């Protein structure tokens, strides 16, 4: 992607029919640290890699609870993500107040997408530089959506966004057919393995990732660090016994496949 004379304004089309500002916004998502989501029939699990500027600072919050039945994980400009999560929470709570009923995830996602689209068609605005994985539960089951700065949204069985997400996607692509019938524990195991794929040889510990769950009879919540560390340790032991099916685990400190 190179600079050209059609990329200054979001309201300028290129001759090839592209809006470069929107595409650059999607680039910002790819630069953020990874976020991964996996869904089964009854549960959705979100995980994110915690990036901190330095050892001295705390890491950025990338997973937000939107309502008891919906949560999001973001990648990209986290400030934009915070603002959008405030909007999502507001929409959910207004719906609950009027209808005493949780807002269906599909409708929230469409509202968010329409909000993002507005920013692609106003000369005095810029697109949101954040991609969101929206995980939620409603009458029609468990859902995982990805909302793009372009205003598009898609439903997924499993997805990964952010830097080195391709490694995670490769892992997920091998296993996704089993996810629908997976148990909650299996989903958490798979999401932790997927996170591990995005770490460039760094050791997977609970301080480097955040995991959240929402499911039938289980409101959205972020799992505590201690439980995650115990799960990581129990999975790593098993990993030594039986290799992952079909995926070559990248355990050497070589560089993982670069994204893009």
């Amino acid at each position, binding site marked *: 992607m190179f600079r050209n004379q059609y990329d200054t304004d979001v309201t300028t089309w290129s001759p090839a029919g592209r809006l470069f500002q929107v595409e650059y916004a999607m680039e910002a998502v790819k630069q953020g640290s990874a976020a991964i989501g996996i869904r089964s029939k009854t549960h959705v699990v979100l995980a994110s890699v915690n990036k901190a500027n330095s050892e001295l600072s705390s890491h950025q919050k990338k997973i937000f609870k939107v309502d008891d039945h919906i949560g999001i994980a973001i990648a990209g400009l986290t400030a934009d993500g915070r603002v959008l999560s405030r909007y999502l929470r507001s929409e959910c709570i207004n719906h609950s107040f009027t*209808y005493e009923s949780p807002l269906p995830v599909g*409708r929230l996602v469409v509202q968010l997408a329409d909000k993002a689209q507005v920013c692609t068609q106003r000369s005095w605005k810029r697109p949101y530089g954040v991609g969101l994985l929206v995980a939620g539960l*409603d009458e029609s089951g468990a859902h995982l959506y990805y909302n793009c700065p372009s205003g598009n949204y898609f439903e997924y069985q499993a997805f990964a966004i952010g830097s080195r997400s391709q490694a995670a996607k490769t892992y997920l692509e091998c296993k996704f057919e089993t996810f629908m019938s997976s148990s909650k524990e299996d989903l958490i195991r798979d999401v932790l393995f997927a996170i591990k794929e995005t770490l460039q040889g760094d050791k997977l510990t609970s301080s480097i990732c955040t995991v959240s769950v929402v499911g039938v009879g289980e409101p959205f919540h972020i799992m505590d660090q201690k439980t995650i560390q115990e799960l990581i340790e129990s999975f790593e032991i098993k990993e030594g016994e039986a290799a992952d099916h079909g995926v070559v685990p990248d355990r050497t400190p070589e560089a993982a496949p670069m994204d893009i």
Partner: protein
Amino acid sequence: MNSIDSTPAKNSLLSSEIGSERTLYPYVTGTSVIGIKYKDGILMAADMGGSYGSTLRYKSVERLKSIGKHSLLGASGEISDFQEILRYLDELILYDNMWDDGNSLGPKEVHNYLTRVMYNRRNKFNPLWNSLVLGGVKNGQKYLGTVSMIGVHFEDNHVATGFGNHLARPILRDEWHENLSFEDAVKLLEKCMRVLLYRDRSAINKLQIAKITEEEVTISQPYSLKTFWGFSAFQNPTKGAEGSW
């Protein structure tokens, strides 16, 4: 009346300088509505009378209407306000359908929406002069609730408005039980409606019964209840008081 709701702040809402633009009294009113849960869903009954004060003026007023796929609404009180509520709900259901996403508003959601509407109007001192009964079935769950003109709302196994609260609910408290069959439920409702017909001055002998189940909504054709007036005390009414009428 509604569009001039927001009179300028300098005119108090309670003054009558310009001429008040808010509901003060009801004019054309419907009387009781009764609703009960039964085995397959909800049954509601209401007569078809629209009274103009003490005159039984309109005799074909439909006070039971279906809302969306999952709900039934019955109203007593000002008929024009009921029609306004139906317009609000029509728009609500329209927007709900326009999402075209497989989700739909169930009776619980409609009930709460109506509660918000009624309560908000009450706060502006411009109420919709109705007592509403909202019933329905969605995903096997039966729902029956009521909202009053001041926004008081609750759910129960049997609800009624107006005189129905005083005459019908005691009968229902004794004789309602879980899993009434359709025939038994209709008999029970007719028993209540008969008492109301005898004792409520604004009731007329032309009623509809509406049924809602998971599969369908049916509102019956209007019909009348059999009544009995052959009591011996009615034979010579002035027997103990000659000269009176």
